[in-house]
């Protein structure tokens, strides 16, 4: 499932995928894979992304369960 919240948070911050990738120390393809839902990041990377975007884990990665 695509992570649209991450994508919109990044866009709101005015960052490209490359800029975010540089900020958290991964490849741009990895950021793209996370946004596309092709890769589940570790909690460490999630935290780094949240820090870079000024969001909480809940805001970017938590999915409500039915």
């Amino acid at each position, binding site marked *: 499932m695509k992570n649209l919240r991450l994508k919109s948070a990044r866009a709101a911050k005015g960052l490209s*995928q490359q800029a975010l*990738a540089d900020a958290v120390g*991964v*490849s*741009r*393809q*990895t950021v*793209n894979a996370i946004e596309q839902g092709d890769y589940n*990041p570790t909690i460490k*990377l999630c935290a780094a992304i949240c820090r870079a975007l000024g969001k909480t884990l809940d805001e970017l990665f938590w999915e409500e369960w039915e």
Partner: protein
Amino acid sequence: MVLLIAVGCVAVGLIPILIGSAMERRGRGYTDYDERQQYVRGKAYQYALMTLMACILVWIGLYGIGGWDWTGNVANVGLCCMCLSALVFTVYCTVHDSYLSWRSKHYLAFGVTAALMGGAYIALWWMSERWLEFWHLAVGLFWLADGAAILLRRWWLRRKKDGEEP
């Protein structure tokens, strides 16, 4: 033979690194794989090992059932199995953008050098006129396919602008 393989490995492994480092100036770490890349490489190792085992199993089967020694000698078989296995590894990594570390920008140098080495080995095999001793061919095909995969992937990513979204 061992010397030639060593020369090939050094050429393909070392020259791009030297070129890349010169291009990059700062010459940052070559083993910086991010977590996704490490995961992909783990899967690639798995597939490569399975390929190696399957190849050896097929050969043992063919040899055991029919006593058909189509390979000429055991060294050829071993080398070809390793080439195929390594090819699976490199192509899988290349397709998933994990062949080089995320900081490396040496894909072009790697691709071109590998393709050239492949061509050289195949030419060597052809000129030797000992076509049943096909380890030259196996190594050549490996490097050629490896180089082609890298260059194709690079071309594809550039064409699609690497999936970059603003």
